[in-house]
């Protein structure tokens, strides 16, 4: 299955998942060390981690009984590049501004 970028944006749209990523910026962590930062149930934590896994934002390793999570920072590049999409937003608008001015000065 190919990761689609919308998955990345959807994955970071939840504050709990952003906080999980923040925690992993400092290094790999086992699931317990992640869960202790949240007041939600363990299944809820696992569900959020699953979304991050599916988006390719984290990977999971098993060491015996322990599961450790690691951030995949490259996956956040499209997010860092979001300003480029705002640039396109303005360029599209200014193309419309140009047409607006042509239209309104013709009359």
């Amino acid at each position, binding site marked *: 299955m190919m990761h689609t970028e*919308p998955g990345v944006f959807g994955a970071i749209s939840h504050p709990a998942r952003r906080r999980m990523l923040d925690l992993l910026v400092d290094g790999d962590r086992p699931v317990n060390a992640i869960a202790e930062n949240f007041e939600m149930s363990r299944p809820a934590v696992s569900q959020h981690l699953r979304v991050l896994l599916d988006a390719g934002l984290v*990977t999971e390793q098993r060491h015996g009984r322990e599961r450790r999570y690691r951030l995949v920072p*490259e996956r956040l590049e499209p997010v860092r590049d979001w*300003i480029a999409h705002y640039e*396109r937003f303005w360029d599209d608008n200014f193309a419309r501004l140009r047409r607006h*001015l042509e239209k309104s000065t013709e009359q």
Partner: protein
Amino acid sequence: MTTKTIRRELKFPQSPAAVWRALATSEALADWMYPNDFEPRVGHRFTFRVPPDPRAKFDGLTVHCEVLRCAPPSELEFTWVVGDGWLDTRVRYRIEADGDGTRVLFEHSGFKEDQAFHGAEFGWKMMHGKLAKTLEKASGGAALPSPVSDNPALKA
């Protein structure tokens, strides 16, 4: 924290007065941007209402603005705030005569890294699906981490 600014220099054959009317009247802004309740006076608070687009699963959104400077026909500046303040930026136009036409110096400033992070969902929605295509293209040949679904550790 460092902030980023979008800058554009635009040239128009029309007069500064015509360009000012296009940038600083509610009717004109509704034509080339979005429905709004703009008024050309400092301190006026207004919104741009970006309409929903069901095909792109976009719910629409409201951009909150306040006029900071209004000096016809040469300078217009307003705030550009989205969500509960996570995107707190400013838009500024400076308008100059340029021969028979007009030069507009545009700046949208105040983009912060953390805004990008927390506002990514908006950035995504804002582009009405255009982003999807761009990103698909961008990631087409890129080396991505191996899909997690292939990771044997994940199989129950």
